[in-house]
């Protein structure tokens, strides 16, 4: 299917079909996928959730269970995985192919230290065929302690290679004692222990911060360059693809839509799906304008299907697309393939125009003014929310005795934060995980009480939720990150949305009417009122959560990572809903996110947090175009660029220090590329640089900042 001959390739997947038996009939997770990876090549396998990319990857290493491969072949280093014996499969896994999994909190065994888990991998690689249980259980007469010690020594080397600082100390650490980035590095060490020819990485950086992601991608790239390890990178993030992949395979609903060199795919996508996917990325659209979306949803993976799976959502679909075989066209000149009946007609269309028009929005670029959310932030009057010197500390003492002895440590989750939110504006709160963003939001919503400082809403100091009156509570709505776990699975949509209304004494008929109105506002149909959360898609559930948050007409909605669990096409639709609501209802948003491309798109102002402190606060365009604080700059540079070949800039080295024991002076100095001795001596004050307030001795000042 691709231009390489399958024989020469390290990995060649041909016409793979993987199915899952379910009570509702077979689910066709992978339907005729063909992929090749050559030695030393980095191939990206891209698609949204449900595209079958992970199942394809797992099928390659024989981990498709409980699914089964019903057709097709997977040749890996000359062995057909689909009918390999257990022993052959073990040999492949221990020698030829390794896998790095998505969520490092779940992929390391919690009860063994990382040294043991890496050592095991080394031992497997060395003695593929003589694996005795008692030896691996370290039962004395059957297992040589000196041999295990040797493997542990080598594990330390390997940990250093994947960029774990102080590996001698970390080798004894259990996974829960390590940060997400370190865990994923340990996962890489386990995978690389066998010095594989092919590394399959399934969303390896999705659960990580941008800064950590940049470091990890750099490691992968370096490993590829130095040892010639081929990499099959499974991801939904086209920025990551642009960053390190040589070639891209775009999947949709279990089928391959388009393949080709990364540059060609990003610059001149041929398949309508690839185009639509690229279009709905916030970084490709002007700030404040509406995002193009892909209407409809991924087809049900059950039952038979004919024609192109994307046809129901495609503007260019013809009758030919809806039935029969869809041809895979070779574009020639190593430009890849595209599986589309209409691809020739699409060639002339510039990317982006197609789906933008479909959403009924004005052309991007000219839309900035019209799309500006709400009436805009109101600068003149009193702010809606004011935080003044707000701190939240947690005592880490284990009990009264430690507390008496004074051996308790305090964790400074939020430290002396001054911040205000004006009516109708979107303030984005960004920073790496653990920086205190969510704690700050909890202080605002009253789920936590500040240790010191004051939170004022509409000029009145407010306490924790239990002490707030009904009006104050109604004034702040909350949407949490994971919509599924924030909605009670046993309540219908109607009851979930109506709950705040009921506790405010609304009677049944008024509630019903209000719920209908709210459903319409968030773009759900009336019939969804009687659904349960598990019957809805991720995007729909999050809409329900938003409807619940605005039920009592709040003036502020706190959105804690509201779109980060969603696919790009769903995310863009939800961001549009949020923008509409803001314009119609004059809502202020506190938008917490680690995804800076989303923030850049939606925010009026941005506040950057690091270790509980505010590093920089200012208007979004200013902060993004010309960041004042070195930390903001590092965050922005770590975003994978969509420009093909454009690699990320200098990424932050090292790990975030512990908030229990922050560095003296400026908290950022231990990772700051510009740090000077004075940064260690004195903690910088918050200072105003033009429209931006920053906390730094060495701000980046360009001409626009000259006036103080």
């Amino acid at each position, binding site marked *: 299917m691709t231009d390489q001959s399958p024989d020469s390739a390290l990995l060649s997947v041909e016409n793979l079909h993987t199915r899952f038996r379910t009570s509702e009939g077979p689910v066709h997770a992978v339907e005729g996928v063909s992929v090749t990876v050559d030695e030393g090549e980095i191939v990206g396998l891209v698609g949204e959730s449900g595209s079958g990319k992970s199942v394809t990857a797992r099928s390659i290493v024989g981990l498709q269970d409980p699914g089964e491969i019903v057709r097709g072949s997977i040749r890996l280093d000359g062995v057909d995985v689909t009918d390999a014996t257990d022993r052959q499969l073990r040999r492949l896994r221990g020698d030829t192919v390794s896998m790095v999994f998505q969520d490092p909190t779940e992929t390391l065994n*919690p*009860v063994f*230290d990382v040294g043991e888990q890496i050592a095991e991998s080394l031992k497997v690689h060395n003695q593929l065929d003589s694996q005795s249980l008692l030896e691996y*259980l370290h039962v004395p007469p059957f297992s040589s302690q000196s041999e295990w010690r040797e493997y542990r020594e080598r594990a330390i080397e390997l940990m250093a290679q994947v960029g774990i600082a102080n590996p001698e100390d970390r080798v004894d650490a259990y996974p*829960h004692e390590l940060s997400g980035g370190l865990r994923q590095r340990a996962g890489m060490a*386990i995978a690389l222990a*066998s010095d594989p020819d092919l590394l399959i990485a399934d969303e390896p950086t999705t659960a990580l911060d941008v800064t950590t992601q940049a470091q990890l991608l750099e490691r992968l790239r370096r490993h590829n360059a130095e040892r010639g390890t081929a990499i099959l990178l499974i991801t939904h993030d086209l920025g990551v693809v642009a960053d390190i992949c040589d070639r891209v395979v775009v999947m949709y609903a279990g089928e391959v839509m388009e393949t080709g060199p990364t540059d060609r795919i990003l610059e001149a996508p041929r398949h309508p799906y690839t185009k639509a996917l690229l279009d709905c990325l916030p970084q490709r659209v002007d700030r404040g304008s509406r995002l193009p979306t892909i209407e409809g949803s991924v087809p049900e993976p059950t039952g038979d299907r004919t024609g192109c799976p994307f046809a129901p959502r495609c503007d260019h679909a013809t009758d030919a697309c809806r039935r029969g075989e869809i041809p895979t066209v070779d574009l020639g000149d190593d430009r890849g393939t595209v599986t589309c009946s209409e691809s020739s007609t699409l060639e002339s269309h510039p990317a982006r125009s197609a789906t933008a028009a479909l959403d009924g929005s004005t052309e991007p670029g000219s839309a900035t003014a019209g799309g500006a959310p709400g009436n805009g932030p109101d600068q003149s009057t009193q702010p809606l929310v004011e935080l003044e010197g707000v701190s939240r500390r947690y005592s880490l003492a284990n009990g009264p005795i430690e507390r008496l002895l004074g051996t308790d440590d305090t964790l400074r989750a939020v430290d002396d934060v001054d911040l205000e939110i004006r009516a109708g504006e979107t303030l984005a709160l960004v920073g790496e995980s653990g920086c205190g963003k969510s704690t700050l939001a909890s202080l605002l919503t009253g789920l936590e009480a500040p240790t010191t400082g004051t939170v004022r809403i509409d000029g009145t100091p407010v306490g924790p939720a239990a002490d707030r009156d009904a009006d104050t509570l109604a004034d702040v709505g909350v949407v949490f990150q994971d919509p599924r776990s924030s909605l009670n699975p046993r309540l219908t949509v109607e009851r979930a949305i109506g709950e705040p209304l009921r506790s405010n004494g609304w009677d049944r008929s008024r509630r019903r009417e209000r719920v209908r109105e709210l459903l319409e506002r968030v773009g759900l149909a009336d019939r969804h009122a009687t659904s349960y959360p598990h019957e809805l898609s991720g995007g729909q559930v999050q809409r329900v959560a938003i409807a619940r948050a605005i039920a009592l007409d709040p003036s502020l909605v706190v959105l804690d990572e509201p779109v980060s669990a969603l696919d790009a096409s769903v995310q863009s639709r939800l961001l549009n809903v949020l923008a509409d609501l803001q314009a119609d209802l004059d809502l202020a948003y506190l938008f917490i996110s680690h995804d800076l491309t989303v923030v850049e798109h939606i925010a009026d102002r941005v506040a950057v947090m690091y270790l509980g402190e505010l590093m920089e606060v200012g208007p979004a365009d200013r902060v993004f175009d010309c960041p004042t604080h070195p930390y903001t700059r590092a965050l922005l540079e770590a975003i994978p660029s969509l420009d093909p070949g454009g690699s990320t800039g200098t990424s932050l080295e090292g790990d975030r220090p512990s908030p229990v024991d922050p560095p003296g002076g400026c908290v950022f100095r231990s990772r700051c590329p510009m740090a000077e001795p004075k940064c260690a001596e004195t903690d910088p004050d918050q200072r105003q640089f033009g429209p931006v307030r920053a906390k730094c001795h060495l701000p980046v000042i360009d001409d626009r900042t000259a006036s103080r």
Partner: protein
Amino acid sequence: MIDYDYLASRLATSLAVTFGVSVVTYGLIFLTPGDPAEIILSQQLDRQPSAAEIEAFRADHGLNDPIPVQYLHWLTDVFRGDLGTSYYSDTPVSTLIVETVPLTLELALAAMLVALAISIPAGVVSAVHRGTPIDHASQLGALLGVSMPNFWLAYLLILLFPLTLGVLPVAGAGSFGHLVLPAITLGTGMAAVVTRLVRSSMLEVLDEAYVDTARAKGLRERIVVYKHALRNALVPVVTILGLQLGTLLNGAVVVEIIFQRPGLGSLLVDAVFERNYPVVQGVTLVTAIVFVATNLLVDLTYRYLDPRVQLGGETA
């Protein structure tokens, strides 16, 4: 690393629980009809005792005091290390307990071993071969084990081994042979409960991502299952083991009587029938202490099984 704060608070709770148990049994005992003086004297004298004799017995053992006062007397004695003397034989209760506790503990531990030896392999095999005939067989076995009363199993075993095959003694205690049938009787019921638990816990763990990580390394399935999965699956199992000890001590009462084994169980049953208050109180107290101590031990074991467990768990 031992967390003294945690230990101190756990010991305090344990003490409170033990105290509560003693209050409740003391109260319950006095609610049951029957006068110890009458029952014991009539047994000792082998005739109906006279009113004067009964009065003397009652005065002698302080049975005329109000119940709270009697309890206080008993409690202060306990703190002096004196559990009182049996009404029946004038033997100190502590002596009776010291004589019988090892026998019951021996039985309980043997039963626990039998239970673990059956349930862990059965549960693991069942989970690994989910939905196959092996799984169904083990599930059916577990169902049988749970539903079969242990006195009935005891008689079946006695019928089969000593009476038909002529191996193993029918009753008594003292040798390994004497332990086999009671331990099997007592252990199978528990094995059934634990098998189901191991199975469901293993099924859950086998779905975890780290199991796939272990497979992707190229490890043999046996090592994946018995090293990576089992250790994680045992965490909830250990909790239940501690709680099952209570059931085990309950069961010991029945089993000890059937097999005529001296032990805490038979001692307690006799004492209840005789209204031998000091013995009932003493045995209950010791049982409560054993139970509470085992569960404390169980909680400490978590730390070893699962390094994530923060004993105490209070961080904010």
